[in-house]
């Protein structure tokens, strides 16, 4: 299979790796003729030794399968992958660069990709990183592949670092009167050395905090959180976090925003002032927000807010005709230079074309 893909890269004009299709907007390329390579035909766990905290699997492996295998040994993917129940794949997860709200405890996806194998634009099989939890040899291709949107290589194999599942978790909810109050409360908590797994602010200024650790410490940590935050705290262990509700319907678009951390309040208030967009969740510590837009026509106003704050965004779900980037896109220049090195003949979809078109349309 890998040989076939190498051949496809050599022989076809444009190739596009696909996975479970849970982030379709990242691979949209209407009007461009591409040969799609379905990575799901390359699936399965290749190596897993629980004592090493490492798992190696083919790129088309569904994350649900990985989680099941890890779960038998009380281990998990600490970056909190999204869309697992919708059959998202390992390769698609890495290429989309998405982590979930619980990544606050141990780190985001980039911190857990230890080794990658991919086909470059010359049709050669390339490896970066190593099957160990600590490694400083060679360029960090594992990180470069995070968020590469299928444009820097066709991932064939990934080794992830995994960790023991926290023995206990607890979720607390506090209603706040404004974004300002919710963000201040989040900052108060984050300044303490507490085992915080997730901090999210919802559209109605609600603050959700999840912490993790040993069972015996949970009550003590809750007590501490209660002391730090004036106001009533409610336990909501059973409810999903806001950013686990990322479905779109009709013309709706799901937009992921990455923003400089000092801009939480301006972003939340800026987005609240837009007619066609709704905040799903804002994670002030990681600098990530999820927003739903009514359709393409709503992106123009959002663009203005993002530009003003130095934030970047991408449409992840919903119908778009191509990779749709918003806000600060200064990164595209360097990404395109690196792409030209890895893929000198332009076999993968470009980053830049979209940026240029957006600039014209925007």
């Amino acid at each position, binding site marked *: 299979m890998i040989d076939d893909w190498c051949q496809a890269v050599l022989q076809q004009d444009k190739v596009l790796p696909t996975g479970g299709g849970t982030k379709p907007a990242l691979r949209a390329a209407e009007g461009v003729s591409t040969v799609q390579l379905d990575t799901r035909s390359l699936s399965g766990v290749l190596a897993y*030794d*629980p*004592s*090493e*905290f490492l798992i190696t699997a083919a790129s088309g492996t569904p994350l649900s399968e990985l989680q099941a295998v890890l779960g038998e040994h009380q281990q998990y993917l600490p970056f909190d992958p999204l869309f697992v129940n919708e059959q998202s794949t390992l390769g698609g997860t890495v290429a989309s*660069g998405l982590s979930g709200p619980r990544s606050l405890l141990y*780190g985001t996806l*980039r*911190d857990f990709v230890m080794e990658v194998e991919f086909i*470059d634009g010359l049709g*050669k*099989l*390339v*490896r*970066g990183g*190593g*099957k*160990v*939890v*600590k*490694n*400083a*040899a*060679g*360029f*960090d*291709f*594992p*990180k*470069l*592949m*995070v968020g*590469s949107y299928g444009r820097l290589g066709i991932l064939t194999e990934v080794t992830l670092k995994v960790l023991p599942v926290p023995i206990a978790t607890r979720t607390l909810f506090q209603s706040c009167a404004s974004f300002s109050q919710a963000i201040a409360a989040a900052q108060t908590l984050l*300044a*303490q*050395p507490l085992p915080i797994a997730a901090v999210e602010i919802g559209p109605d200024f609600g603050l959700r905090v999840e912490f993790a*650790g040993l069972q015996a*410490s949970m009550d*003590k*940590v809750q007590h*501490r959180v209660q002391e730090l935050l004036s106001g009533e705290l409610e336990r909501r262990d059973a409810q999903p976090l806001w950013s686990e509700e990322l479905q779109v319907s009709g013309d709706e678009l799901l937009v*992921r925003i*990455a*923003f*400089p*951390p000092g801009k939480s309040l301006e972003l939340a208030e800026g987005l609240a002032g837009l007619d066609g967009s709704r905040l799903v969740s804002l994670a002030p*510590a*990681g*600098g*990530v927000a999820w927003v739903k837009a009514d359709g393409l026509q709503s992106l123009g106003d959002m663009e203005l807010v993002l530009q003003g704050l130095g934030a*970047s965004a991408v449409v992840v779900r919903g119908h778009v005709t191509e990779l749709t*980037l918003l806000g*600060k896109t200064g*990164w595209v220049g*360097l*990404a395109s230079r*690196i792409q*030209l*090195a*890895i893929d000198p003949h332009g076999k993968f979809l470009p980053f830049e074309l979209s940026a240029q078109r957006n600039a014209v349309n925007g």
Partner: protein
Amino acid sequence: MSRDTIVDSLLSILPADRLQNSASALAAFQSDGLTAFAVQPRAIVVPRSAEEVVQTVQWCHRQGVPFVARGSGTSLSGGSLPHADGIVIALNRLNRVLEVDLPNRRAVVEPGVINSVLTSMVAHAGLYYAPDPSSQQVCTIGGNVAFNSGGAHCLKYGMTSNHVLAMKMLLADGELVDVGLGGGECIGPDLLGLMVGSEGLLGIALEITVKLMPRPEKFHTVLAGYDTLQQAGAAVATIIGSGLLPAAIEIMDRLSMQAATAAVGARYPENVEAVLIVELDGSTESVDTERCLLDELLSKSGASEVIVAADAQERATIWKGRKSVFSAVGHLSPDFIVQDGVVPRSQLGFALQRIEAMSREAGIAVANVFHAGDGNLHPLIMFDGRKPGELQNAERLAEKIVQLCIELGGSITGEHGVGMEKRQFLPGMFSEDSLDCMRRTRIACDPKEIANRGKMFPDAEAPALGMYGLHPLEKQGVASRM
């Protein structure tokens, strides 16, 4: 270009006092922490501003003159060794902390800021900068970024790469780019991740935004003695397997303990072959709970004696002993080579047995200290370079140990980088196609291959040979190694 031509040409773009080319200056910069190599550059540029760095690099690009960016020169892999036809850009004067954002727990620094200085600047707010290479009292954050430095506490907190949130990067062709948004997440490929740890081959970081962490309010640090290294190794597996994630798990063997005792008077359990250092940290609530579990695990692990640090003073003594080992060994033996290989955790015991056997066979003493939690070995191979053949024998043993790490599916370097020292081993880890793709990536940022030319890639020109041993800073007791 001749030395005189280089100096004359640089004087046309920089004030005269930014340039050093006296015999003593050139000699002072000829080596870094890996004293085996010594090369004198054509000249040394000491810029006072980011703008001067930009002008210097643009000049290098125009003229095709190689440059090596250098901080404090503590690299253990020869990463900041000068190029004979090039210049050194010493970044020590770019040492301003540009911004400290306490509510969002981050700081923006210039590359010449000393690692531990940042921590002392934010300590009043209960924050610290987590990466803690042993040379943190002297090494610069710019150097840490170039080599993705680790430290004893990267088991829990990760390496430098996990703590850098954004950078203003000067590529080797003179273009300035921003990578990362400052919040830890970005859109598009993780270009920041590519830049950190690229060993100075892509360009120079001029502004670095780093994460500050809340200082743990409680520590629980223990020393546990074992009759064999294997028992200590097994205890590591038990602790890791229990779900605890200590801040650090280190192992020292008997020779390392002897060295540390001789050097700083560190006290260890009597008559043991190996000692395990485990440190828990975090909130009072978490540490109080976790220490009960750790005590239980250690008592079942066959430890002959467990010493708990009763206060901050005793904790400091334990770490002082651990961090002194390299320089302490330097006092026992005139010269030594430090290796930095990584093996899968499950292979730790086997790797140690093999190293012991190889050491016996070669008749060369090897002391072992390692970051056991992540399988990162630091064997210290001792020899006397004045005796004919000893250096060569020691190097052969070092090479065997590196090969062993590759055979066991590990890495040739966990935290010191490839640099000058290990480039011939890189093909043992990566195929020609992989190395070619890395080379093309380098050329995308540095078309003339002038940034730290001759490092990391295996086909670079031959090194100048010298002697392994203590860095001048270590001899003064200023720096130590991990």
